[in-house]
């Protein structure tokens, strides 16, 4: 009896050991033959290796769990690149996917298809700075200060300004519907605008009425701006003005090379316009070329908080050489250079590659260029269409102080 129980017991124990052992053995052999695939890193550099697997972990969970299918992987990849670039915490470095790049790419060429209004993000709200004269936006009655709430059905608040602009732009002849909030109007209204080819004049020039003072304005440091400037300056100087007002207010910059050309019109050849410092410590001095048309005429430069980047290069140089008297308010303070890389799939990567400094070595980034004579524009001035900065410039050139 006892022997029987013992036998059953031994048999059971032996069976359990056998089964468990064999199972574990089978699993182990199988794990050698079919190892779990390591998370792919897709070519991660070695310093990324300890950190990057968590990306694929997240990727995998998203593909396992996310409620909406199918998932557009290429969109996720573009999002990933964008997120990495955003993590640099530099507002000027930016990734643009191929589709968006195609729309925004022609910006500095002087013409594009859209509605023809300059815009900026103010506290997360897309605000019309100014409709370009005779553009569809102008004809539709958009006013400076109008806030765009929706483009077609998309709410654009807090959106990246390039993305918002990409939504507004589109082929000539197509229609875009904007929901607009206008100051002092209780409810937003909707306006439909037919897009057209917009040619942005980079330069505006005239003689100021009742004076012998020439006025020259640069809207953007675009590709054809140097030629336009040269022509306009030639025409102005032919009228023998006694003074020149050069207006860079609200000029957000543009191409770095153009800033050298522009500065060269006012400075003698061979003078340093800016000092560019790269990440590896390389220092480059960019100098004016000869043949400037307006190197002697008494000159006032108008600047404000909207004068940025290339505008600040020219402002800082003219200030350092005391070539012009700067009137207005402090400039924006964007003293960095971006290089736009086109990647192999036609997406665009804009990277901050250098900071620039004035000829005297003053940092511009985060600092800006201060005017010699500060003149502010009040809300009251705007409402009454007064321009005290321009008035002060005329006074300065007329009286010498």
């Amino acid at each position, binding site marked *: 009896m006892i022997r029987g129980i013992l036998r059953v017991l031994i048999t059971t124990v032996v*069976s359990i050991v056998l*089964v468990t*052992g*064999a*199972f574990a053995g*089978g*699993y182990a052999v*199988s794990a050698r033959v*079919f190892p*779990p*695939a390591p998370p792919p890193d897709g*070519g991660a*550099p070695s310093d*990324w290796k300890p*950190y*990057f*697997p*968590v*990306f694929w972990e*997240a*990727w*995998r*969970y*998203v*593909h396992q*769990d*996310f*409620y*909406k*299918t199918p998932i557009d*992987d290429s969109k*996720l*990849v*573009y*999002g*990933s*690149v964008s*997120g*990495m*670039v955003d*993590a*640099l915490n530099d507002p000027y*470095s930016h*990734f643009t996917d191929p589709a968006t790049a195609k729309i925004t790419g022609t910006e500095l060429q002087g013409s594009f298809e859209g509605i023809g209004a300059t815009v900026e*993000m103010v*506290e*997360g709200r897309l605000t019309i700075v100014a409709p370009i004269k005779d553009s569809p936006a102008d004809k539709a009655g958009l006013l400076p200060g109008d806030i765009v*709430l929706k483009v077609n059905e*998309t709410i654009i*608040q*807090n959106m990246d300004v390039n993305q918002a602009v990409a939504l507004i732009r589109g082929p000539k002849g197509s229609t875009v519907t904007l929901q607009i909030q206008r100051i002092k109007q209780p409810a*937003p209204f909707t306006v439909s605008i037919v897009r057209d080819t917009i040619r942005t004049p980079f330069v505006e020039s005239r003689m100021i009425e009742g004076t012998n003072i020439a006025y020259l304005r640069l809207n953007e440091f675009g590709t054809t701006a140097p030629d336009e400037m040269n022509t306009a300056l030639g025409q102005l100087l032919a009228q023998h003005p006694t003074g020149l007002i050069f207006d860079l207010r609200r000029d957000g910059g543009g191409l770095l090379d153009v800033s050298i050309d522009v500065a060269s019109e006012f400075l003698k050849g061979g003078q340093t316009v800016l000092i560019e410092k790269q990440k590896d410590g390389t220092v480059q001095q960019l100098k004016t070329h000869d043949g400037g048309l307006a190197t002697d005429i008494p000159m006032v430069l108008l600047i404000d908080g909207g004068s940025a980047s290339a505008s600040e290069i020219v402002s800082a140089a003219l200030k350092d050489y005391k070539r012009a008297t700067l009137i207005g308010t402090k400039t924006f303070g964007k003293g*960095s250079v971006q290089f736009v*890389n086109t*990647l*192999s799939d036609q997406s665009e990567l804009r*990277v*901050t*590659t250098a*900071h620039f400094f004035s000829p005297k070595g003053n940092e511009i980034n985060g600092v800006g260029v201060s005017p010699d004579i500060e003149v502010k524009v009040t809300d009251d001035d705007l409402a009454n269409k007064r321009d005290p900065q321009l008035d002060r410039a005329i006074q300065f050139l007329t009286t010498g102080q």
Partner: protein
Amino acid sequence: MRAVLRFMILVLLAMLVTFASFGAGFGLNYYLVQTQPPTQIPKNFPIFWEAFGIIKDQFYGTIPNAQALTHGAIRGMLDGLGDPHTVLIEPEPAKKEQTNLKGNTGDVGLNLDVRDGLLTIVAPVPNSPADKAGLRAGDIIIKIGDKDLTLQPITVQEATNLLRGPVGSQITLIIHRIGETQPITAEMTRETYALPTVDARVLPGTTLGYIKISLETAETANEFAKELDNLKSQGVTGLVLDLRNNPGGLFPDPVLDIAGQFLKNNDVVVIEKDRNGTEKPYNAGSRRGATDLPVVVLVNNGTASAAEILAGALKDYKRAVLIGEPTYGKGSVQSVRPLSDGSALHITVATWLTPKHTEIEGAGLQPDIAVPLTDDDISKSVDPQLNRAIDYLKKGA
């Protein structure tokens, strides 16, 4: 001879069992490996390293470490899904979330959501600092203290962390309100405040009961049952259920129980639909307190999540008339996946449908009778939505 045979059979059997076990173990691993999602690199992924190579060569500033860049990449990848509720919580905030829960932490009382990339107020908690400061459902927060939300998107979890702080400390918010041309500044002092539970009474001059509930505590179902009995004992002839500015809270309880109070059977209250299209119904609880009492449910754009489930079920079964404004439209389910580096992934895994298959996420629910509440009403302390409800219950139309 017999013994030998027996022994042989035994050995054979043992061998068979051993083989079978080996096979089972072998097969299990094979299954586990094969059912992993494909580990192939997405087709255009090389762009990622191409971009990083350029940044490494060219970028003027200090490049954050690989971990920070990886987190950035994950955040960006999740943005690509276009779902505001699928987010990454990094290890640091996850920890801070924990410490904030302990000790003398105050809050301002805002239920938040990210909508179209904007941090939006779902509803202020009644009598909280935010409520007293005049913040409203639908307001968009553009600045919390020094943090400018227009520069970088923010998750609800990050925002909640920023809003919390020591009791008595100050926090300033800048708000954008649709229709206002200027941003609004709201200064608040952080407090600890009690979550409201159930507010029930007989409306003066009527025989109608009024109940306002919070769905944020587990006790609500019992308290609701108690108040309902109490109102019935006072002989009410109709009921106003106020779900305005109710951000929801717990799911599936107490919503299922409260819904059941009004329904005749254990009907489906809400359906959870996952990525495979599988529908999981949730049925009403068993208490049947008010199956015949006429009911009006008050809703507005602060009615969200579990509160929308309740309103949607009562609407679909024509058990209540919805009066007020369209609801918020927050009806998805998130699950949390801890990641190996201590961060956590909140992923939207399912969406809620009302019994008649109306999706709650997005557009929200439409009221049967639309009654807006204007600024003028608020300043005069009149409540046209409640008045319309009383009117409806008195006249039946």
